[in-house]
C-alpha cells in the first residue's frame, strides 16, 4: 500500500518534526512527538526503514559513544551514582554522578532520535516531491531546477569522487603526512579532477536544458496536479496538535518537556536495580 499525500503536507511534517526537536528537550517526549507522526507516514507510504537506517548504524553508534562520554563526564551536579569507594576523582572534582549519567544518556538518545528522524524524512519525501513543492510555492523556475539538479547530483558526485580516488590510489597515492598544510595539498589529486569534471558537467547540463526547451522566465506546464485530499487534512490537523503539545510543554517549561522526566525514569530504574 502506498498512499499519496500532497507533497506540501509532507514538507509541513518536516517543519513539525524540526519544531518538536527544538522545543522539547526531554527524550521520551521527543520520541513520542517525533516518532508518532513519522511512523504513520512510514506505514502508509510503505517506506523501507532498513534501507534508511542501515548505512547510518556505524556513524550513529560512534557519535553516540562520544556524546555520552563527553556529557557524562561534564555534568556539574554532584549526586554520586556509585558508593563512595567507586567514585572517580581528579583533584577535588567528582567525575561520575547519577545526574551526569542520566544527562549523558538523555542527550545521546535525543540526538540519535533527531538524526534518525531526519534520515527517515529524506526517504519519506523524495527529492522529486520536494521540487514539486518548490514549484507550488512559486520559487523562481531556475532556482527550483538548480535545487533539483543539486540534490540529484549528489550521488553522481560521490561515485565520481570514488572513481578518482581509486585511479589515484592505483598510482600509489595516499596521504602520508600529518602536517595540516601538506595534508591539504595532498588532496589535490582528488580535488582537481573532481572540480574540472563538475565544471564540464555543469556546462553540458546547461546546454542540455536549453536544447530541451527550457527558457528562463518561460512558464512551464507541470504534468502533476497535486490536490489536498481528506487524508492530508486529517494528517495536518494531527500535526498541528503535535506542534501545540510541543509549544505548551516546551514553552511553559512543564516538567515533562525538560530533562527531568526521562532522568527520573532512568534514576527510578537504577534505584530498583
Amino acid at each position, binding site marked *: 500500500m502506498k498512499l499519496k499525500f500532497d507533497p506540501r503536507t509532507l514538507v509541513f511534517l518536516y517543519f513539525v518534526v524540526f519544531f518538536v526537536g527544538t522545543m522539547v528537550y526531554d527524550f521520551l517526549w521527543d520520541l513520542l512527538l517525533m516518532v508518532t507522526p513519522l511512523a504513520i507516514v512510514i506505514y502508509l507510504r510503505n517506506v523501507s526503514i532498513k534501507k534508511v537506517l542501515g548505512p547510518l548504524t556505524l556513524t550513529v553508534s560512534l557519535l553516540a559513544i562520544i556524546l555520552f562520554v563527553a556529557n557524562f563526564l561534564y555534568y556539574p551536579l554532584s549526586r554520586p551514582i556509585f558508593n563512595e569507594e567507586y567514585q572517580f576523582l581528579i583533584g577535588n572534582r567528582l567525575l561520575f554522578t547519577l545526574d551526569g549519567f542520566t544527562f549523558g544518556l538523555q542527550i545521546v538518545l535525543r540526538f540519535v532520535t533527531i538524526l534518525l528522524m531526519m534520515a527517515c524524512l529524506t526517504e519519506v519525501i523524495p*527529492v522529486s516531491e520536494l521540487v514539486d513543492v518548490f514549484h507550488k510555492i512559486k520559487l523562481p523556475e531556475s532556482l527550483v531546477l538548480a535545487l*533539483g539538479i543539486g540534490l*540529484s*547530483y549528489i550521488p*553522481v558526485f560521490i561515485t565520481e569522487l570514488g*572513481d578518482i580516488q581509486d585511479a589515484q590510489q592505483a598510482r600509489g597515492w595516499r596521504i602520508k603526512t600529518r602536517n595540516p598544510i601538506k595534508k591539504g595539498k595532498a588532496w589535490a589529486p582528488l580535488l582537481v579532477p573532481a572540480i574540472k569534471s563538475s565544471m564540464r558537467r555543469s556546462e553540458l547540463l546547461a546546454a542540455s536544458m536549453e536544447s530541451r526547451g527550457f*527558457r528562463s522566465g518561460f512558464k512551464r506546464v507541470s504534468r502533476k496536479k497535486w490536490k489536498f485530499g481528506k487524508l492530508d487534512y486529517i494528517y495536518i490537523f494531527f500535526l498541528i496538535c503535535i506542534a501545540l503539545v510541543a509549544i505548551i510543554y516546551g514553552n511553559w517549561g512543564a516538567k515533562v518537556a525538560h530533562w527531568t522526566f526521562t532522568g527520573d525514569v532512568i534514576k527510578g530504574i537504577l534505584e530498583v536495580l
Partner: protein
Amino acid sequence: MKQRIQINNVDFSYKGKTELAVEDVSLQINERNILLVTGSAGAGKTTLCRLINGAIPHFFEGEYAGDVLLEGKSITGDFSTMGEIAVLVGYVGQDPASQLICPTVEDEIAFALENFGTSPEETNREVEEQLKETGLTRYRNKNPHTLSGGEQQLCVIAAFLASKQGIMILDEPTSNIDPIGSARVFDIIIKKLEAQNMTPIIVEHKIDILAPLVNRMVVIDKGKIIFDGPPRKVLQNTEELTKIGIRVPQMVLLWKELKDLGVEFNKVPITVDEMATCLRPLLKRGIKVDPIEEAKGHSSTETVIKAENLSHTYPDGTLAIKDCSLTIKKGEFVGIVGQNGSGKTTLVKHFNALLHPTKGKVCVMGNDIGDFTADKMASTVGYCFQNPDDQIFKDKVKDELAFGPKNVGLSEEEIEKMVEMAAHRMEISDFLDVDPFTLSLGERTRVAVASVVAMNPEILIVDEPTTGQDYLRGDEIMRLVKEFNDRGATCIVITHDMQLCAKWVDRLIVTKEGRIFLDGTTREVFSQGEALETTNLHPPPITRLGQKLKQWLPENVLSVEEMADHIKTILGGNKIEA
C-alpha cells in the same frame, strides 16, 4: 520534398582557439533523410550538431560565419535562444549523466514536454508510452543518476523520443550500451522517427550497425565534409576512410579484397547476411576449408595472478562476482569482455587490491592481496582507468607522468628515467611540457596509460581504453599496450570492442552475471558464437560470416585477410563472375 536543414558555407572556431572546428560546411537535409554523420575523433562532428541545434552560436561562443536555416528560418536571425530552437530540434549527447536534469525517470521524460507547454494529459500519456517502449517502467520513480550507464542512456533516449521535435540529433547515443543492445536501440529509434516523419541525424563510429539502417552518410575530416551520399557508395572509398580513422565494415573490406581477386557483386554487401547471400552460390562450387589450426598456448609457466573461488559483495548487498577462479601467466595479453554489469571491473579491481575478496582468495606474484592496499600494489600492478580525466591533475604532462614513480618512492634520477621511458613508449615525448588538459581525448588517454607505465609495473591493466575514441586511436592504444606486453609485461584489457580483441588479444575471458562464462584463446572463444550471444556480445562480423557459411568456411576466422585467403583457396585462385 521538404527541406529541413540548410547549412550554407559555415566556418566556426571556438572562443580562445585559432583553428577552425568546421570549415566551409554546406549541407542540405530533407525530411526523407536518415543521416549518419561519421568521422575521426575531433573531426568536427559534434560541432556540426551544435550548429544545427543552435548551441552554436547561442551557447558556445566563437568566430561564426555563414548561416544555418531550420525549416527556412535563420538560426541567427530568426531565433534568439537555444530554447526557441528546441521546439524544432532535439539533441541527445554521448554522456548521459550530463543530460539528466530531473529527480526521477518519469520527470526526465516529461521535462521537454512541460517546457513546450504540452497539456498534462498528453504529457502523462507520452511518459507512459516511452517508459513501456524503453523498458524503464520499473525505474520510473528512481533518480536517473542511480541507474547504470546503459539505463541512463535509455532514459535520455526515452525523453528525446517523447519530445517529438521534427529534427532529432543523436550524438553517439549508445556509447554505454553493449553491441547487441546498441543495434536494438538504433532499430527502435529509426523506426519510430520514420513513422512520425521526423528526421534523424545520427553521429556514430558504429558504422557496422548503422550503415544498413540509414539512407545517407556524411563523412567529416578536419572540419570539412569529404564524402556525402548513400552508405554503399561512400563506403566503397575504403582506403581513404581507413586512413582518416574510420572503421569500414568488415564486409565492405572483404568485398574490396574479393574485388581485387576479380569477384564482382551486383551491390556492395554491408551486412553479414548480405555477404553470405552473395557468397553462397560461389562457395557451392568449391570445397570446405578446414578450421584454422590454433597456435600453441602461452609458453610461460610462471603464474602472476591466481584467483580461487573469488566472490565480492558490495556494502549495499550487491553480489558482483561469484565464485570466480582463474590463473594468468606471465607475459599473457588477456582481454576481458562481457555486458555492462557482468563484473569485469569488479574482478580486475581485485588484482591491484582496490577491492578485497569477500570470499575466496587472490594472489598476485605469489602474495595474498588481502595483506596489501592499492597504493602498495601500484609498482607491481598498474591500473589505468576508463576516463583519463579521473586521474589527470598536473599542469604539465611530465609532472603527471612523474606522479606515480614519486609516490612509490623512486629517486629523482630514476623518476626522470622512467618518465622518459614511458613517454617514449606511449609516443608522447613531444608533449612533455604541454598542459595535459589542452590535449585531445586520444592523447590524454595515452598520457594516462603512460603515467601508469612510468611505474614500470609487471602487470598492466587498462579499463576500456577505446571508449570515446575513433577506430584509429583505439587501435593505436592497443598497439602500444601490445608493445609493452612484448617486452615481457602481463597485460589485461577490459573492452567492448570485439574487433580489437580479435586483432590484438591472445586470450579472452567472458564474464556473465558475475561469473567467468568463457575462457580460452581469442579464436576458441569467438568460435562459440551462440554462447557469446547469450551475453549480448557478438563475435566480429567476419567470424560470424564464417559461422553463417560453416558448410564451406571455418568458424574461427579472425580477420578479413584470413577470410579472403580461405575464399581464394576455395575458388582456386580463378577469376569468377558472380
